[in-house]
Structure formats: C-alpha cells, structure tokens
C-alpha cells in the first residue's frame, strides 16, 4: 500500500532572493527517476517540510513543462518553518510530498480565452506560475494575457528581474504600489500609486476575459466587484484560497470549508462555487 505521508528528498538547486523577505527556490528530486516522472497541473501545491520545523503548503510557481527537470516555489518568511527554509543554501535539502489540489482550468478549454491574471502581495506567487505557463505553452502569443500585480512597496515586489522578459513575450503587466516615493519603472512603464483596484480605473483592462485571482482574503470582494462591473460572468472568475493543511488527502478535516476540502477540491474555485459555499471567501 502506498504511504501518503512519506515525503521525498529534494535538493535546492538554485536560490534567488526576490525581496527583503522572499526567495525563489528551484528544487530537484534527489532521486532523478522520480524527477523524470514528476508532473503537476498549474495551481497545484506541494507540502514542504524540514525535519523539526514542520510542514506547510506551497504552490508551485514554475512552468509545468519543466516538471521533468525541476519545480520552483517562492517562500516568504512568516514563521518558524519558512525561517528554516530561508536559512537553506544551494545544495541543501528539504522534503516534499505532492502535488496536491485541483489546479487552474486548462486555458484552451475556457469560454473567454483572453486571460486576466490578478495577484496581490505574496498571492502573486501562484500568478507567476500562470505567467510561466502562458509563456512556456506560447499561449501568450495567441491570446491577450494581462497581469495585474498589487503590492505594498517596491521593496516587496517579487520577480522584478523577470518583468522585461514577460513584456517581450507579449504579456501586459500593470503594477500598483500602495507606497512609493518616486514611481517605480519597469521597461518603459510606470507603476501606479494605489491599490490593485485602482488599476481598474486608471488603466484599460481587457475584456471579455477569464480572470484568475490570488491574494489576501480582503482583496477578493473588491476585485470581484470590479470584474463584474467589467462584465465578466461568475463562471469566468477563478480564485485560489488558503487553508490549514495536514494530510493533503482529504481526511484530516483541517482544510474543510462546509462540504469541500481545499486540499482536494481546491485550492482553485470558480465564483459560481460561492452559490453553494459562500464561506470560501
């Protein structure tokens, strides 16, 4: 019988500091045969652990086409476990199990195939996975992909070094910063001062489109309201939520929200799901 609790060893292949408290980790299974067999759907998460520091859920934020070689997670230091991760160096190891969860819908099956990818704060990490996915699959050269990124300050912006590359791949990137002394510039564009919602009034947002949102819970309702004003139907709006995870296999009950388990039925939900389960947001 397969043991769902046993983790596998992964090596830190590369670490890139992203901000004062965040870093991007490229991880590779120690067992290369396991790496070659590894596959995931964009939006799925891994349970990462370090002996003695516990276990936590982290969404993969690299392209699924690279799964046979490596996968990436971006970690922000918020507690004991993430503090441990931040102390790791290239060549160090940690443990993983997964992938878990449902993942985002497959782009080509969407009704409205232009994409609005919306991320706030460290919720932008899974959005980076979606960005990587649209680039790797060349989806962004066929369909309009607009990325909306709301952040507190320039110092906490993640993936800054990648912005130019994204723009070259025909993605549109709009950034809002709540606090900035002078306007943050990326390529030939400027961030706006304000919150994510202000992007809707100050910039032209594409429509019709399918929207995918990740961010702090307080961000969901205002953003959803703006998307609806834009004319998006509930079925065109997807969002990813966070809950406590222990088992990852829908048994332990920690992540239950009424009749769903976020670890299995989520973490991605459609706005339509709120009709039956308003507590998701």
């Amino acid at each position: 019988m397969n043991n769902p609790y046993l983790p596998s060893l992964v090596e830190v292949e590369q670490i890139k500091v992203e901000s004062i408290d965040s870093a991007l980790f490229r991880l590779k299974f120690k067992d290369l045969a396991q790496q070659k067999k590894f596959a995931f759907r964009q939006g799925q998460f891994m349970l990462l652990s370090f002996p003695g520091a516990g276990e936590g859920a982290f969404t993969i934020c690299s392209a699924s086409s690279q799964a046979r070689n490596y996968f990436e997670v971006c970690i922000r230091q918020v507690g004991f476990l993430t503090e441990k991760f931040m102390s790791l160096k290239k060549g160090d190891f940690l443990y993983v199990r997964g992938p878990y969860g449902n993942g985002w819908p497959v782009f080509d099956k969407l009704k409205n195939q232009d994409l609005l990818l919306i991320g706030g704060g460290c919720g932008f990490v899974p959005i980076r996975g979606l960005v990587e996915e649209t680039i790797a699959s060349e989806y962004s050269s066929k369909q309009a992909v607009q990325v909306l990124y709301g952040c507190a300050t320039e110092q906490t912006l993640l993936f800054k070094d990648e912005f130019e590359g994204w723009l070259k791949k025909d993605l549109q990137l709009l950034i809002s910063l709540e606090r900035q002394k002078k306007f943050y510039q990326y390529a030939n564009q400027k961030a706006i001062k304000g919150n994510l919602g202000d992007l809707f009034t100050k910039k032209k947002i594409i429509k019709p489109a399918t929207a995918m949102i990740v961010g702090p819970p307080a961000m969901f309702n205002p953003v959803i309201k703006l998307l609806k004003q834009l004319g998006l139907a509930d079925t065109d709006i997807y969002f990813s939520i966070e809950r406590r995870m222990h088992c990852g296999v829908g048994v332990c009950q920690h992540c239950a929200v009424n009749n769903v388990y976020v670890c299995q039925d989520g973490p991605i939900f459609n706005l339509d799901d709120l009709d039956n389960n308003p507590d998701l947001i």
Partner: protein
Amino acid sequence: MLKKDIDKLASFVASKYDLHGPIKDGNETTIKPIQDVTKLDYSGIIATNSFKSFFLPIREELFSFSAQGGTNNKVLPKSVNSKAIAAWGMTVMDLKALGLYDLVFAKDPYYQERRENNIVIGISAGAPAKFDEYQVFSMNLEENILEHIPFDIFLEQNKEGEFHIYSGSSKGRQVLKAVGIEIYENIQFVGLIPEEGLDPRMVKMNQKVADSIDQKVWQEIASICLACGKCSQVCPTCFCFDLSEVSEKDGQVTKQREWGNCFFSGFSEIAGKKTFLKTVKQRLFFWYEHKFVRIPNEYKAPGCVSCLRCYKVCPVGINIIEVLNKLKQDE
C-alpha cells in the same frame, strides 16, 4: 451458548491478544484492559470511552527522518509494531463507527496494519439508559444489521442471558474452531449501506444540518458550549488528526499523527496566525457538519452512530438529539 462458554472464548482470545472490553465500576462503564474475563460487562450500558484508540491511536509514529546532511537523509517508515488487540464487546453502534473508519482509512497503511492485527468481537447489548429518548435517531435493531457491520465474532445475547454466536471473518472462525465452538452462524459483510439504499434518516438529517448556520439553535448552544473538545475525544466517529514532529537524538525527527480537535483554536490557523473557525458557534457547526453532511456525502454512511457518548461527557449537558430536533426542516 452459556456465559461460561463465552468466558472460555474470552480467555482464549486473551491468550492470543491484548484483551480490552467494557468493565462496570460503580456507576461508570469504561473500556479497559481485561485481567479477569468474568468481569466483562454485558449489561448494555455504553462505555464512556470508545474503542477508537485501538484502531486510530491517540498518538502514533509515522516515520522518522533526519535533519542532518550527508547520507542520513533517508525517510524511515515506522511499522505499527504494537501488540495485537482484541476489542471485545463492541456494540452495533461501535461497529458502525468502525465500518466508517474502514472507509475513511481505506488507503492508510498504518490503520490497515493495525486493523489486520486486531480482532473485533461484537455484542448485541447496547442501548443508552433512556431508550425512549434514544429512538429519535437510533438505527439499532434493524433487520439484517449484522450483514452491514464489520466484525470477526458477534455475540447475541437473549433475555435469558444465553448467547448465539456469529462469525464474520475467517479470523473469527479460526478462533471459534480453536476453542471448540462449532455452533455458530456465518455472516457475510456486504458493506455499510443497506439494500434499500441510503438511510432515510441520514438523508433527512443531512438536509437539515446543511446551510443551517444562521438558525438560532447554533447561537444558543454556542453560548453555553465551553469548546472543551471532550465530545470529540469520546466520539467513535470523530477522526480529525494533526501531523506533528518530535525531535529525537542524533538529529532524527519522528513524524507523528495525533488526534486533532476542531474545537481547539489552532485547528484552522494558517501562517500569519489567521484563523478561519473563529467562534465557538463556527466550531460547533463544523463538528455537526462533519458528521451529518461531509461524512454522508463522502461515504454514504451516517457520521453519527447515536451512542450519545458526547452528551454523557459534555460538562454543560449539550444533547445532540435535542440540538438536531431544534433544527428547522426548511431554511
């Protein structure tokens, strides 16, 4: 079969297994390790504690792994490695709960190993003291019930105190054969769900509880509930668990599984200290919702076996039957 024959069977079982069963001590009946098999209680009083710890221990080791570098990074799965237990005197209600666990932990190697090692002896006795109250959502004394509950041996006691024996597995038959018991009936387990389809009481209760969070009964009981979590501990179907770690010497760390409790504040907490089940009302509802909505949806079986252990241990006397009766049908 007379009581002395059953004692002989129990003695044999005790020689092969670590025997645990109900013992009456003053006003309280509890499941304990058994030294003297003649003390086993057949009165039908439900023991305060449940049998669940023999199948899902309060704490169990899952594996160990190392925080050291180098070659010590292997993950070493732990084997169950405990003495096989005989769970003697499980009532029909307890066996229904066990049947549910068999479904919930169908893919869990630790549970399965333990389940395989242990032997289960059921008894027909078992109804709470106040039977009139109990009938509200009792599913006891149904027809063909024995085909729908798992057991190795089942003892049916009649009014005269004589026993009729059933076997429910080859493990059970081997034990009966070894003791020289030849008269017994074979029962084939056909799953928890009755032939007629889903339990109508379960379906009705599911509808009543789902989406009832705004009904005033939840606020009423939340105002007296201490969120002490005793109900979860004694409930034979509660199975929430936590995964945690214990540091050993030489940098080895043991991952363990422990009983969880949805009444405790850390249950839904995520990084940054955010909690989703904030109020006692939310936690109470979560508990009921698990039993009457999530479990029936997932396993097609009731998540409450109506043993009333929760009521018995509740320091403020919250009665699950009264709570359910107060729920309005349509809302």
